[in-house]
């Protein structure tokens, strides 16, 4: 065992010194390899962060959302339906929600208008997200005016700007009082946008949904788990799409690595010839070349991953943000929570190091079987 380890150590030492002797060539390879790792790692880290954010957001969401459908389209839900829903056993809490979208021509953006269930603002006041605050330059005490449904002007005074653990959801939020909401959109009392219900036992959620579907056949019922699953697979899909797009780059890199490994200079061939002449076996040369590949890929992996970590968690992934997050006018400044996942590192290792090894193994072998007398003559 000891002899084996010492042999490996000596080979590693030799490899490192021979890598240093050809700085230029190896540095170019290292830079390209690190760039590949950097791109793939950025995509993985960023979408992972987004997924976590979505999960945090939906953690406290109600189990069921019930919407009334008319002609396959979402319609307003009458109060009478809420009373019916309250009778379904297993449902502990049910209430109608009031929300909608509001286009603001000044900011050229859509706001999400909502009436909060608890602590609604006073009539004439609004609580706004930081995105709106930034777009309109509105601070608490400032006034914002909007056109209501009948063309009249409705003015809100900013009561507060929301600071929340997840800026993703609250950036474009515009919270108002129920009366203001109905005046803004012209929705009569007794009508709601949709309803949410809480179910105490998580295993009864499906059954409760079935009962609601029987009771109110003209409604659409969305389960929280379904939303979570959909988010998950949307992010997976986007992440996968980006990876597939990047395979072109990985392939190009593999060709580059192949080229580098097979284009041995006369000096390198001579070196291998001399090594063999002084007693190295083909196996030793192979092992040395393998160490070379190992050192290269590990350094490139660490450098690339580190850069990606900085790119995503300190700079907010400016390169991939538009693809992975989706697009909107009012996106929040989003600083994801740093997180390293061993599983993800393993995935990344396979995606980057494996193509490199696959591309270089044949050239390495070609180099190792060189006949000493051929190159030294």
């Amino acid at each position, binding site marked *: 065992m000891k002899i084996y380890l010492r042999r490996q150590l000596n080979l590693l030492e030799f490899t490192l010194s021979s890598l240093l002797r050809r700085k230029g060539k190896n540095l170019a390879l290292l830079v390209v390899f690190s760039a590949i790792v950097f791109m793939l790692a950025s995509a993985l880290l960023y979408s992972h962060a987004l997924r976590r954010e979505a999960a945090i957001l939906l953690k406290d969401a109600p189990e069921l959302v019930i919407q009334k459908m008319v002609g396959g389209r979402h319609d307003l839900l009458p109060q009478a339906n809420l009373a019916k829903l309250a009778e379904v056993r297993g449902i502990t809490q049910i209430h109608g929600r009031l929300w909608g979208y509001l286009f603001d021509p000044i900011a050229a953006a859509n706001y999400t208008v909502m009436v909060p269930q608890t602590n609604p603002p006073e009539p004439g006041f609004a609580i706004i997200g930081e995105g709106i605050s930034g777009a309109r330059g509105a601070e608490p005490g400032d006034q914002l005016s909007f056109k209501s449904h009948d063309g009249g002007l409705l003015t809100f005074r900013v009561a507060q700007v929301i600071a929340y653990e997840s800026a993703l959801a609250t950036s474009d939020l515009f919270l108002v009082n129920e009366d203001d909401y109905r005046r803004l959109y012209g929705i009569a009392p007794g009508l709601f946008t949709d309803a949410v219900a809480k179910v105490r036992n998580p295993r009864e959620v*499906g059954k409760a949904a079935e009962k609601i*579907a029987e009771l109110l056949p003209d409604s*659409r019922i969305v389960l929280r788990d379904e939303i979570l699953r959909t988010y998950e*697979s949307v992010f997976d*899909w986007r992440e996968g799409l980006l990876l597939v797009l990047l395979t072109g780059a990985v392939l190009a890199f593999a060709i580059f690595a192949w080229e580098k490994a097979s284009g041995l200079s006369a000096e390198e061939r001579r070196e291998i010839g001399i090594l063999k002449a002084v007693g190295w076996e083909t196996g030793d040369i192979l092992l040395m070349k393998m160490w070379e590949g190992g050192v290269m890929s590990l350094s490139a992996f660490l450098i690339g991953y580190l850069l990606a970590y900085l790119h995503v968690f300190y700079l907010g992934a400016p390169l991939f943000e538009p693809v992975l997050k989706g697009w909107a006018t009012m996106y929040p400044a989003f600083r994801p929570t740093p997180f390293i996942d061993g*599983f993800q590192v393993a995935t*990344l290792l396979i*995606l980057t190091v494996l193509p490199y*090894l696959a591309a270089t193994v044949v050239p390495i072998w070609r180099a190792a079987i060189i006949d000493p007398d051929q190159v030294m003559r």
Partner: protein
Amino acid sequence: MLFHPSIIALLLASALSSLALVGSALFAVTLLRHWNLSSGSERQIVLEQRTYLVTTVLKLALIFEAGSLLLFVFNADKMAKLFVGAMCAVGTLNVNPYGFPALILKIAVFFLSAAWLMLHHIDSQGYDYPLIRVKYAALLFLAPVALVSAFVQLTYFLDLKADVLTSCCSTLFGGSTVVTTNNMGFAPEAWSLGGLALVLAATGLVGLWHLKRGRGGLAYALLSLSVLVVALIAIVSAISVYVYEQPHHHCPFCMLKQEYGYVGYALYLPLFLGTATGIGAGLASFAGRWPSLSLASPALSKRFAYVSLLSFLVFAGAAVGLIMKSHLILFEGFA
């Protein structure tokens, strides 16, 4: 479902290693037909040079096969969120009928690969490539298994359909339809634990006998394999229950996670290592019939058996420790 990063990684690994194995198997056919060490012909020299390439490629492929086994399990666990009713890897693997066959085939490929690598190591101890024909004949058996494993894995992933909001116009998307289950068939706890103790004891005795007298290597290899099977049954039916302290949670994978302090590794790593080196002990003692290995291989066999015995001891210690530490009592009057 193919657009999932880890699935892409798994498919890439299995595609490359399949390619490597097919290439090596084709080479194996040529080698079996034309290998002649006493000949100095050009073909023989090319063959000898090629063996270096093939063994290097195979080493890489088999290492990645082993790594992808772990990745496969973790991937299944991560994807559990996407399926109604799935709570961990078991649920995901049960989504379609290819999940567990894919896993079992991957485990089979892992052990076959380990056996092949040990065979290669034994072979390299002799000066005249004594086992080269055995080695490459074995490759002709290993390659199809690996190909089938890659194919079943691909089918499994192709057949996965996440339960997501597909159309915004349907009334009820999910409901209480149970698509997948988290249940695993299991043996009675007392039988599986008793059987495990028995098999481990038998393996220990045969192993010690082998260490002392240098005989019974093949019997030891067979016993190591049976330890693997019995231990996996015991983990599913009894040890997992002790780990989770819940009489109905029989998952063999959850214990690999942080929530349970990664204790699963303390069970699986020594178990797999013990079985693999146990097989190696059998192979090495089998190789003793070749004259050029008659000195090296018995020693190697003992060394493999030694590592294997130690690993099984660690495994047994970990299992007993987990049972003792658990607050769950399955058998009144015992631990």
